[in-house]
């Protein structure tokens, strides 16, 4: 089971270097519920499970700061903010229908029964 805080986040993990892999403490990918609200080095993120694996995104839409934890999937490669339909690519975070807007995306991998996260290059 994934341990959760009162805000619905998974438990806070230890800090790592700016672009290093960070293990998400208390998150078991086999039993965790996705989308998963958590943090990378203190930054709020959401981990998604897609047909091709896991992907992390910054939690708030840069447009009006709405949380993306309940964003719609647009196919398997994009997510759409529920507020105003801003669509972002999961590959590189670029706004598809909102030029100039971009979200930080994260690589996520399962390893030894845990999830590890780092900013995508």
């Amino acid at each position, binding site marked *: 089971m994934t341990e959760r805080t009162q805000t619905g986040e998974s438990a806070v993990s230890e800090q790592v270097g700016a672009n290093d892999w960070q293990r998400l403490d208390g998150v078991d990918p086999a039993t965790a519920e996705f989308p998963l609200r958590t943090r990378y080095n203190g930054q709020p993120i959401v981990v998604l499970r897609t047909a091709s694996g896991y992907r992390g995104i910054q939690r708030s839409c840069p447009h009006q700061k709405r949380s993306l934890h309940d964003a719609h999937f647009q196919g398997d490669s994009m997510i759409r903010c529920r507020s105003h*339909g*801003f*669509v972002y690519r999961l590959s590189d975070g670029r706004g*598809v*229908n909102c*030029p*100039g807007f*971009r979200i930080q995306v994260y690589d996520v991998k399962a390893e030894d029964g845990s999830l590890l996260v780092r900013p995508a290059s």
Partner: protein
Amino acid sequence: MNAPATATLLKGAHVIDPSRNIDRIADVAIADGKICDPQRLPANAQVIDAAGSYVTPGWIDLHVHVYGTLGFADPDSIGIYQGVTSYVEAGGPGIGTMDEFLSLLEGKTVTSLYAGPFLRPMGILGLSFIESEVRSLTDVPIADWIDFHKAHPGLLRYLKVGSMSGYGAGVMKLAKGLAEILALPLYAHIGEHQLQPGKESAYDIYRVAEAGDIVTHIYHGNQCGILDADGKVLPLVRQAKARGILFDVGFGGYNFSWDVAEAAYSQDFLPDLISSDLQQFNVLGPCYSLANVMTCILKLGMPLPEVVNCVTSKVARALGMTGFAGSLKPGMPADVTVFRIESGAFELADTRSQSRMTDRRLVPTMAFKAGVRVDCEMERCRSEQNWLLQFAEDHVPDRAKWLSSRQRGFLTALATRLAPIQWDLYASERLDYQKALELQRAFHEVRLQQGLPMGEALTAVFDSLLDHPFTMQVGLFLLRVDRSLVLKRLSEVGIGRSKVA
């Protein structure tokens, strides 16, 4: 679209025609594209049993986005297919892009399309972080405006401007001056001031606008709204209304708040006009359709005949269209909307995640455009292809195969012309508006050199880079595509063999 019938009788409907104070069960007759006296219909007229339905003059949505960065691939999907027989593109193009707008959309919609161009020559940018920047207005070419307006009588219905804050009343006076020169109403957007510096000067619009001018987004819940801190309608706003300034709903993506609407309505501050502001970012909700916005105003308490009035007769008067729209008077073009009132439990969301429940809603079922019947498809607009711009990054779109040899030659020349220009929309936090202008100039320079008609040149670019057709300012479009992809793709399509002569 259904096959045209020369004569049709809509029998036994509840007819609401505010232009003639009609609100009763009646028949409406259509012959040769016009409303006619039912007694004069030919014997072989098609009879439609409209009992249980409402029949009104064709709805006019004075605020939509079918062109530009907010527009749709299928403009009729928010028009005739939702019971709207006429609409106005609210600011998508400006005088610097009206030629592009017309080449792509003129005569291409069943819904009658009019323009309310923006003061900025390129039109609305659709990027909230620059929309309010006064320098993006660049210049105001008076002679071009006058010449265009004379050359296209009846196309322009108002001049749009954002009541930009932080710069005093100058921008609004500039727009008002131009509107006076063109003898058009000023159409002022008052939303999104939470994103602007020096917000208080947005209120100057109420001092600058005059009788017949229109303020849109009246029930927005953002800063610089129509209410004071205690929820009372501002005296300045009431005075503006008393002077004859018209107030329009303009639901939009950010600009309808139940709290504001209910507070204002309870103080008898009602809209004069109802529009949707439909765009890519609200068509899946919370706006959905003009019918949904009308349902919201019905929920506020406005009687149905007055709701209809606000999308028919009153709009026609406000936009100088009474000679040909907004009425079922015999002899008028047969623009007609048929709808029913559906009972149930329906949620009506605003743009601030607030909802109200209602037990009835308007559901358009068919519309007639100049006598030709179209059955409504309210969900047609929701198709992803309609609202999501999809760049063909890893393949050449099928439609590119059908570009002509001349179009391919143009693309090759354009790739050469663009090669020395550097751009990257994502390299900075802010849009490089001057770069968009530079790309636009390059496009037109090559187009003129090649002698290619505007529509063919634009289609060549869009069909090379998009999976589905969109209509947009070409400078802005190029700016938002990766430069390397543009150069590679234009060259690749340019040297390809055409399937057509």
